[in-house]
């Protein structure tokens, strides 16, 4: 009777792709017993284990509670309202209990299982959840998978939802990275997008983060908000730089269909900034943050050297990860799966999972899908697509076609090819390669989008590659 059918959104991939180990600067001296190959931490690739079949070392935990829904938000959230204290709210406790049941009911395919290297609490507003309940989740994760002592443990926190005591408690639970949802430094803009906090709470939150000694923290901004002017954006970026976060995320506003903004506004039309202005905001961020010493390592992410978000990087590398909680996505055993976005259905799903009623079919998806995933994810990063390993997984022919399809965009400066020494291949050098297929398949080692021009047109550019893969 209770049988629900959950279709895996995406399924297994037959080929063995070994993405490059990108994070030279980050050491992962884990104590876990992960297979040797997984722990190799250099740029060489191992060829004997299909990467997507490895057990995940990252977990995303969705904590969906918010005071109210922001006007741009279409995430699976649960709005609590402002009345009850989170400590006493039974909805939170119930949810956390279900979440822990989900974690426990998750089947482990590999033996031994590596400890988690990254844990990311996203939301919603995870900082609304009382630390003792966060602790419950972490204990469950630890006993199920083990959590490495060095693990990066991030939490999204909103100004006005935590004080020094709460953050201290969380830090004692080994939360060591804060992602602070600032969005803008103008009260008017914050109000217009329905944020539950003002600028005052932002400064208080920054002070708390610093006073508690959180070394690794991100300040998250949204560009192209309604009524946002270049002056406001410049101010936000300046104030961001002054706050000295180790990481900055800059998200360009996406106007989603079923949100208040989606009803009220059309992208590119007043009061939203024009497309030109919106592009200019992106360039401003890239220029100012780069000048202030941040690396633009991913389309919407900037960091000080050594402070990349390890968790998010697993996504860009197309590495496996667990997902737990309402609406969360996971990528385990080569299968992408999104959980129900509605609480009731999610509860149902957990019951089914406990009864062993959820099985993600392991039918093989074609290599094209996997190739598309690798392309779209890796081209988000400054490092780009590793052509050598891509060729190994999907064939030289495909790489050759990719190299050629981008000709106009190499000439226009949107696409950059690099050789194996990470030196940029000039347009002239590239042109001479065009007439020589052998050299074309040998010389370029990486393909990336230029910053900011290529990043700004990433969809257009990636869809060209999709066209090549799909044909």
């Amino acid at each position, binding site marked *: 009777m209770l049988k629900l059918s959950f279709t895996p959104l995406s399924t297994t991939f037959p080929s063995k792709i070994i993405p490059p180990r990108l994070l030279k600067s980050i050491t992962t001296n884990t104590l876990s017993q992960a297979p040797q190959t997984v722990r190799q931490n250099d740029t060489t690739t191992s060829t004997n284990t299909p990467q997507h079949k490895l057990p995940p070392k990252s977990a995303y935990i969705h904590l969906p509670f918010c005071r109210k829904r922001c006007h741009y938000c279409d995430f699976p959230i649960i709005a609590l309202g402002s009345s009850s204290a989170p400590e006493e709210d039974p909805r939170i406790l119930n949810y956390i209990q279900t979440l822990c049941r989900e974690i426990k009911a998750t089947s482990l395919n590999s033996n031994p299982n590596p400890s988690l290297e990254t844990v990311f609490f996203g939301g919603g507003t995870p900082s609304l959840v009382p630390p003792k309940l966060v602790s419950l989740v972490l204990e469950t994760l630890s006993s199920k998978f083990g959590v490495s002592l060095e693990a990066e443990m991030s939490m999204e926190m909103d100004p006005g939802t935590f004080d020094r005591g709460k953050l201290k408690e969380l830090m004692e639970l080994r939360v060591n990275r804060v992602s602070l949802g600032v969005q803008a430094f103008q009260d008017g803009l914050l109000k217009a997008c329905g944020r539950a906090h003002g600028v005052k709470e932002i400064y208080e939150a920054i002070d708390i983060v610093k006073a508690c000694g959180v070394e690794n923290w991100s300040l998250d901004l949204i560009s192209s908000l309604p009524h946002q002017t270049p002056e406001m954006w410049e101010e936000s970026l300046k104030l961001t730089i002054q706050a000295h976060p180790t990481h900055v995320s800059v998200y360009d506003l996406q106007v989603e269909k079923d949100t208040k903004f989606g009803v009220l506004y059309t992208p590119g039309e007043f009061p939203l900034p024009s*497309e030109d202005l919106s592009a200019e905001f992106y360039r401003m961020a890239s220029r100012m943050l780069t000048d202030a010493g941040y690396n633009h390592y991913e389309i919407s992410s900037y960091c000080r050297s050594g402070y990349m978000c390890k968790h998010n990087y697993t996504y860009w590398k197309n590495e496996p990860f667990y997902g737990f909680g309402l609406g969360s996505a996971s990528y385990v055993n080569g299968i992408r799966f999104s959980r129900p976005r509605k609480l009731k259905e999610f509860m149902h799903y957990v019951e089914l999972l406990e009864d062993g009623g959820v099985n993600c079919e392991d039918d093989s998806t074609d290599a094209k899908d996997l190739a598309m995933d690798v392309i779209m994810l890796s081209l988000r990063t400054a490092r780009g697509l590793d052509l050598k390993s891509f060729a190994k997984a999907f064939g030289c022919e495909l790489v050759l076609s990719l190299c050629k399809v981008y000709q106009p965009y190499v000439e226009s400066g949107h696409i950059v090819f690099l050789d194996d020494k990470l030196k940029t291949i000039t347009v002239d050098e590239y042109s001479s390669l065009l007439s020589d297929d052998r050299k074309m398949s040998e010389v370029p080692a990486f393909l990336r989008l230029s910053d900011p021009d290529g990043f700004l047109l990433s969809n257009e550019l990636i869809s060209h590659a999709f066209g090549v893969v799909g044909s």
Partner: protein
Amino acid sequence: MATAADFCRLKFMPLSVNSPFHHQQQHHGFGFNYSNKYKFSYSGRRSFRVNCQTTSGVDSSSKVSHSDLQLAAVVGKDRLSKVPTSNIRNFSIIAHIDHGKSTLADKLLQMTGSVESREMKDQFLDNMDLERERGITIKLQAARMRFMYENEPYCLNLIDTPGHVDFSYEVSRSLAACEGALLVVDASQGVEAQTLANVYLALENNLEVIPVLNKIDLPGAEPNRISQEIEEVIGLDCSNAIYCSAKEGIGITEILNAIVQRIPPPHDTNGRPLRALIFDSYYDAYRGVIVYFRVVDGTIKKGDRIIFMASGKVGYLSASIKSVADARVGDTITHYTRRAEQSLPGYKEATPMVFCGLFPIDADQFPELRDALEKLQLNDAALKFEPETSSAMGFGFRCGFLGLLHMEIVQERLEREYNLTLIITAPSVVYRVNTIYGDTVECSNPSLLPEPGKRSSIEEPYVKIELLTPKDYIGPLMELAQDRRGEFKEMKYLTESRASIIYELPLAEMVGDFFDQLKSRSKGYASMEYSFIGYRESELIKLDILINGDCVEPLATIVHKDKAYAVGRALTQKLKELIPRQMFKVPIQACVGSKVIASESLSAIRKDVLAKCYGGDITRKKKLLRKQAEGKRRMKAIGKVDVPQEAFMAVLKLEKEVL
């Protein structure tokens, strides 16, 4: 056995014992299929049964009494051969588009019990998906009904005809096979241009025309005024016009009675040698060639050995005829042994008026496109095509159509029924180019127009159009015709409030949005009808379009020299709207020879980035990217620029001010 003047459907069957219709063959006689279970097939895609027995399922509120129904049922079960020639009535329905022709046909079928109500659906005879969606009739259709009149069984053969002006060719075919016609006029709209055209066709064919005023249930209906209008405009006696509402089932019995009373039976020519006129044919994958024909003289029965007089092909009625081409529409069937001396007049060959290029987006689909066109041509004699090659578009076909609607219909059928993805270039008419060498070249493809130095003059086809309009819109419509290089010929008031305006204008000016403009300027009240009148010399030049510096042949168009600048400007502006922005700036230019006469530029896309892959959920983003890639696939790459299908039709969508 079918006697003279009756309608039949010939089924040329493959002689396999394993035929899926084996059982049926035994039941209904080998290969010749008409009986009380008249099986009605069409278009090779679908077939359904018109059971000629009546049934309990008929709506009890219908105007036919129960005893009539029972009688009809009995009649339905009678074998048709019992109906003498004098009890056969062949008729068609003529009407302006939307005046309720197909609804009336539905009702006639229902009332005579020819279709069981559970099988009944609206527009029963319009069985092409396209016909139902658009609410129009494209192909003529035939159906047989039984009807009891004064205790005698009658056989009523109905041919439903298309109403749109593009398909008047089909109308002439169906009228030639009848003795009478119902003239259906909307009692609130009155006489329209196509009503006139079709009724004149009917009178030319010496048909008995029965005026029917439809939609009398509508609040705006003025049947008295409209019948007066019919009398005044057409000169048809309306004293015994029938008032009906096909939708409500009012007046249907009266119509059936009138058909029997007023339409003459076909001449009894049973003794003469067989002559049967083919009015439609198609190929059925299971049953071979199916031919609809009308027996004009003599008789025909199963097993007869026949010959097609024009093609000379011989066959038995049960024989398998492999190709529809052997049984051409308009040909005459006669007995092999007792041949008729003269074939029947047949039909005028349809002349395509409008040409365009059809190119598959995926070059690999070229052979499929050819096959599809060949199949469509089998039951659409007006469709013409020949291979065409273009540097920008690759291999395709230049196709000729009766008009724009016909072109659209063919395009849609190709895409839907044959799953092809096509680029269609803007339609063009056939120009006659007189060269300096003294010869004349026909040119239906602007990009192939001989160079200016080689031509001494260009002639273009002219049409005479007749516009029927309420007097309030005379001004705007004359302005429209004038704008389209029209030459005023005549205006007369049909009634106090309605006028007919006659213009002669170049066909090229009518291809495109002329009809839309006519409708919009007259708030939908005006109607039109046109006929080809011949070629006239005009000062025409070729307008080329350059996108990003590349000349795009399929966008080239032939225009009057006085309009070149305006069209050039409008066309470049329109293309700017229709071509999606690219990653670089794209100049769009209109040129006459090497001279640029208009120029626009498409600014580059500035931003197309999805900021966040939230929580690693990439599925949605991936879907978007795939869609974007798919969108590119559907466009034609002209140099570096991706050009969508709509752009090739841009010339049809120019704002009215500039033309």
